[in-house]
């Protein structure tokens, strides 16, 4: 699976959260990061190139700071100019049909405010309806969004947990079962260890993988026993 992360941020170098997430995926060979404001400093979008990028990826993600309950200007302009009738929707070919689509949104306000009774009143799911409608119209599967609230206030543990969710949204198949997360983690550990010459570290990681795999076998065995005894 190849993932395209379309990032829109007018001042990306000043954004600690954007730098943190984007820096973390520099070695990911199955991920393409495409920052619109850097690619088009004059604002003139190359539509054919953008459509070719979309064609060559299976999962499309929009990553942006939440500005007035939507994306920065450049991403809206990109949608208007790239997702044209005859390419993304309408009669005939729908180039995005069957792909997956998701949002990664950086939000400066506390999560509790995005609900009835909170200062922002509406939930992120309600406020992102236009993106959900876009995915629906173009035939893409809408993924669970990753909303990052108040990154600046997160401690190291929260940042790590969020980073794992970010990597999963970028590279894990759309299924959050324990088994899928195990498979994903083993795969990522093996990739991270490729070329590592530290024998002791390699052995420890190998052993951790072995434990995860053995636990999976035990869980599957217990599942069979449970199915058997639940049978009337």
């Amino acid at each position, binding site marked *: 699976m190849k993932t395209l992360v379309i990032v829109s941020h007018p001042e990306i170098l000043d954004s600690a959260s954007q730098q943190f997430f984007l820096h973390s995926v520099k070695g990911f060979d199955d991920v393409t990061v495409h920052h619109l404001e850097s690619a088009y400093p004059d604002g003139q979008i190359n539509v054919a190139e953008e459509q070719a990028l979309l064609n060559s990826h299976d999962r499309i993600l929009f990553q942006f700071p939440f500005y007035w309950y939507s994306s920065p200007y450049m991403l809206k302009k990109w949608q208007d100019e790239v997702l044209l009738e005859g390419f993304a929707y309408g009669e005939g070919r729908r180039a995005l049909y069957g792909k997956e689509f998701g949002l990664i949104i950086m939000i400066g306000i506390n999560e509790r405010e995005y609900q009835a009774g909170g200062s922002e009143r509406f939930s992120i799911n309600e406020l992102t309806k236009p993106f959900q409608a876009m995915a629906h119209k173009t035939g893409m599967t809408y993924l669970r969004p990753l909303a990052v609230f108040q990154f600046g206030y997160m401690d190291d543990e929260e940042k790590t947990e969020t980073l794992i969710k970010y990597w999963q949204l970028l590279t894990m198949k759309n299924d959050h079962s324990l088994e899928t997360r*195990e498979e994903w983690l083993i795969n990522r550990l093996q990739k991270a260890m490729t070329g590592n010459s530290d024998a002791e570290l390699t052995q420890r*990681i190998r052993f951790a993988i072995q434990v995860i795999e053995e*636990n999976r076998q035990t869980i599957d065995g217990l599942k069979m026993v449970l199915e058997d005894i639940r049978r009337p």
Partner: protein
Amino acid sequence: MEKEKEEWILSELERTLEKTADETLRVLIKAAQGIIKEQSRRMEQMEAEIDGTLWSPRRWGE
């Protein structure tokens, strides 16, 4: 998984974490600790359910 084995692998990973500077690997090691704990919880819950089901009064007549 026996409790001792779980604790041992978690502490092994913790020691690995202390020695690893590679940020990507550090995050993945923390994820591995989380997954092993979650697997362990899942196994305990399933074993408890098996015990409970086998001891259920509904089964006493069998």
